């Protein structure tokens, strides 16, 4: 896919990003109202990465995600009601309420799962990539992780193995500049994640993650190469975490962006400006897309609220596979 965007992919990217934004903002409200009762990490501000990457994947391509997983799951096709019901701990949730926000899995859409321990998901994606290859297919595995995961040994071990075995896995780092509550400078002297992997000889690039077009274009190149047997790649997306590490984080460690500054950075607003300038977006489309997303999310909330909590017997049923 070239950088060419017409009203097909361009509008579809906007639709996905608005869907994620509306979903995350609504989850934030529901968390404050205690309808979503547990630990949640929102991805508002990083929608461009999820949309730019997942929108190009096939259903049989696999995505692994981390604790900040809602956007990745939605972009990979997980139904909003299933995700929302999961966050509310309901039986109708993707994982029947047993996983929650940090452990979303939707096998039907190739979303093999989110894991809650930083870096723990990276080798899992290698396994999926190997499985696809052994089965003779051309599937690609993608794993999302934050810049905080890169300082862990598991990351380096996985990069080593992925390159050694030339596995079709694309490592997508969402570098939002903060690892939980501290800036990257408190974790490492290496500024760019793409530099960390330099000796392994894989394709690597750092892009502006708030520019969904740039994410899409670079990822398309890596995806085509991995599918054709070219081995792994690393895409570092510089992005921004609009909200705290978790919902309720007082964020004493940073100052909020000024509203005007965020207007310039916001991946959705930026892409809408581009669409209007390039003429593939109608003037009334932004408001319409935002409203449609809000309506879809409200419908998901309605469906989720109607779902019962899981039965107590589910615990014993699920500890072991039969």
């Amino acid at each position, binding site marked *: 896919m070239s950088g060419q965007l017409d009203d097909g992919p361009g509008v579809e990217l906007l639709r996905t990003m608005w869907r994620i934004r509306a979903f995350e903002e609504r989850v934030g409200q529901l968390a404050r109202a205690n309808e979503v009762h547990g630990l949640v990490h929102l991805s508002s501000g990083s929608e461009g990465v999820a949309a730019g990457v997942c929108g190009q994947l096939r259903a049989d391509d696999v995505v692994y995600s981390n604790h900040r997983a809602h956007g990745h799951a939605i972009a990979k096709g997980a139904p909003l009601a299933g995700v929302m019901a999961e966050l509310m701990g309901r039986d109708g949730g993707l994982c029947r309420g047993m996983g929650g926000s940090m452990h979303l899995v*939707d096998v039907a859409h190739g979303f093999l799962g989110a894991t809650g321990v930083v870096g723990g998901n990276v080798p899992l994606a*290698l396994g999926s990539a190997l*499985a696809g290859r052994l089965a003779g297919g051309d599937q690609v595995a993608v794993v999302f992780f934050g810049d905080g995961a890169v300082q862990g040994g598991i990351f380096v*071990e996985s990069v*080593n193995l992925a390159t050694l075995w030339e596995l079709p896995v694309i490592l997508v780092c969402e570098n939002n500049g903060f690892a939980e509550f501290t800036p990257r400078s408190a974790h490492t002297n290496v500024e760019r994640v793409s530099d960390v992997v330099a000796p392994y000889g894989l394709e690597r690039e750092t892009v502006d993650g708030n520019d969904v077009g740039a994410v899409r274009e670079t990822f398309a190149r890596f995806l085509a190469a991995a599918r054709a047997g070219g081995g792994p790649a690393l895409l570092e997306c510089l992005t921004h975490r609009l909200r705290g590490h978790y919902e309720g984080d007082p964020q004493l460690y940073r100052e909020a962006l000024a509203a005007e500054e965020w207007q310039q950075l916001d991946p959705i607003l930026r892409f809408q400006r581009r669409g209007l300038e390039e003429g593939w977006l109608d003037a009334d489309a932004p408001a319409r897309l935002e409203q449609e997303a809000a309506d879809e999310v409200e419908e998901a909330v309605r469906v989720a609220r109607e779902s019962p909590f899981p039965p107590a017997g589910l615990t014993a049923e699920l500890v072991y596979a039969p």
Partner: protein
Amino acid sequence: MAHELPYIAAIGEAISEEMERDESVLYFGQNIATHEEDPFLKQFGPDRVRVTPISETAEIGMAVGVSIAGFRPVVELYMAEFMLVAMDQVVNEANRFHYMSGGQVKVPLVMKAGYGFTAGWAGQHTGTIYGMFMGVPGLKVVVPSTAADAKGLMTTAIRDDNPVAYFHHYLLTLEHGEVPDGEYAVPFGRANVARKGGDVTIVGIGWTVPRALAAAEQLAADGVDAEVIDPRTLNPLDVDTILESVAKTGRLVVVDQSTRHGSAAAVIAAEAADAGFGSLKAPVKLVTALEATVPYSEPMEQYLMPDDPKIVNAVQQVLGNAPVAA
């Protein structure tokens, strides 16, 4: 029909037969298939038999991922302690995925780990650490004590749809035994009554099963008829067979090579006290290693371990024939 094999070869036979039977079975590990004449490599090829770097976390994590995708990897870990390097994958990813996904995925993974090598391998390669994994939901724990069980439990481990930590004892490596020919599967959660007796129940685990049997022979010379039970798997644990035996004998000694607190022996004793207190005629005795790291020096190593005389002494205590303070 059966044939005689050393314990370690019986494990290899199960892996080989399962790889032959089922193409989804893979074999990963450090130092496996190091030369072209390796039988696994020759028979199954480099796609299915893979040498990994010394990267336990990525190795086990990758195996978890490949099993979620439908394959059945056996990961060769050599030393059980190497699993500790990858604890997040072993006790926080592999075992939880089926459950946390609401049953959407399965993780049919075998982690083959040798343990208990108290033969001068010192403090970091001799641990008897299966107890650590017993309370991990979603993970199965296997501890064969004979060549036949080593084969049969490996077959079952490979066919099981859950992650299995398969602990084989290094001091049993070359112990020979009769092994059934062809496909042979020993079900999980079914203890083996290794010796029948009516006076006292001795539960052994792994290498302490032959120790308990040797002690039982000594006791028989003194007119004590001991029943010896080998649980064979610790998760699931066949509590019923132990309770049935205790109901018959009224006395229980549990022998475990691991340190005492947090051990499988302590769990078995607690289960017996919880559900079988009414049948006990004496307090349950535990015969375990001392609460210490295994020392290098040979006499010191033996001092630390449970052995036949310690088992005999414990049995005499529960029978009221020996002073309680040893």
